[in-house]
């Protein structure tokens, strides 16, 4: 009986030593979606549903962007076509503020959405290209710009001039 008691005492002591070092799971590892970077509000065309054309970072504004497109736009961009996207193309640019990646020191990832910009390309009866440009901003996102855009539109030119990223 005394031996059993001693065994129990020793076992408890060893278990206490082992368990005392246990720590709670690191919150950085806890499973979660990136809710901060999710697009809400009135964006009708989810920019994350397209296929990737390219992405970039603007250090001046600490923002990161991903340019996506529909099938027509992506096929054209990946063929190295330049800014003359064919009618039927839709391009979407999602822009987020950057935040540190909690799971990897050395990386920045999308934080709060800054804007969504959408370019659609069509053509008139004479085969002339027509562009429409829409921009959404704020939280939740609201449409702040909607205009027909011409070749001289600086922002339009910027968006349609970005070279596709190499995806072999």
């Amino acid at each position, binding site marked *: 009986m005394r031996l059993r008691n001693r065994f129990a005492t020793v076992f408890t002591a060893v278990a206490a*030593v082992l368990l005392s070092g246990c720590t709670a799971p690191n919150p*950085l*590892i806890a499973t979660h979606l990136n*809710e901060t970077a999710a697009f809400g509000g009135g964006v009708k065309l989810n920019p994350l549903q397209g*296929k990737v054309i390219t992405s970039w970072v603007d250090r001046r504004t600490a923002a*990161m962007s*991903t340019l996506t497109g529909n099938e027509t736009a992506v096929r054209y961009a990946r063929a190295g076509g330049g800014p003359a996207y064919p009618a039927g193309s839709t391009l979407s640019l999602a822009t987020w503020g950057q935040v540190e990646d909690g799971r990897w*020191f050395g990386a920045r990832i*999308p934080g709060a959405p800054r804007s969504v910009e959408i370019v659609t390309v069509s053509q008139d009866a004479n085969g002339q290209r027509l562009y429409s440009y829409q921009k959404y901003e704020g939280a939740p996102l609201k449409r702040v710009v909607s205009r027909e855009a011409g070749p001289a539109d600086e922002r339009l030119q910027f968006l349609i001039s970005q070279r596709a990223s*190499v995806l072999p």
Partner: protein
Amino acid sequence: MANSSSAYRRILLRIGIAGVVVFAGLQFVRPELKNPEVTNELQAPPEVKDILRSACYDCHSNETKLAWFDQVVPAYWLVVRDVKTARQHLNFSELGAQPAAKQRAMLYEAINQVQLGAMPLAAYRRMHPEAHVSESELAVLRHYLETSTPQPEVSAAEVSAAEKQFSDWVAAGPASAKPPAAPNGIEFPADYRNWTPISSTDRFDNQSLRVILGNDTALKAIAENHINPWPDGSILAKVAWTQQKDGQGMVRTGAFQHVEFMIRDSRKYASTKGWGWARWRGTGLKPYGDRPSFSDECVGCHEPVQGNDYVYTAPIRGQR
């Protein structure tokens, strides 16, 4: 009654003596653990080295110092195994011989392992509480890397190389030759180009830009928030490019570096944590690794996030 109790004690005594003899005998079964010469120690400021010395050097250097309780078999056997494994992966006494970029990459990995609580090992911390890295010490390590990581401008030659890579890629067209399978047998998922972006990464530790893509199964899992574990059939692709800076603050994707995949199949890839791992490098899509066990390297790097089904990326909500 007294006789049986006495016999019982004698048996226990003999078992005890036999145990002590076996325990003492085992102390002579000691695999060798040498401290080889320190040849190329990592060069870092004293305050950084002091932290590494206290938290890491017992296993990750040629200056291993064992406490008395580390030297008692069977604990000693575990310690020897751990030290040898640790030195193979990262040895601060020899790290200085590696190129600067490799040294930096190893330091970032080490600090991330500490930040995520994976290092020092929990068992080691329990027995060596002095090895615990405090928040202030972690801040010292982070500050050192943040301020010492170069952010070089892109040379004209690099821009030209990226331009040529783009032209060659366009010329080759989408139906270029199928690359060889990875050494673990995984075939190249060529349709990854048309998957959907689930996040992106700006890596200032190694000057790359990355986009993470998911296949339809992965997207459905994200939409339903069932990402731990990810359902079988999910595939995540991470594409990496060099950073191409324009000198005015814009950083675009430059040359394609690699695309790597995590392919979820809990049964097929049970031996590698339920994921198939593969990477193809360069536009020639050369498979990474020279033997099937290359996946161990992938698993090792993802070990700190095992509680998140070995995935680092937090997908952006709202793909559907």
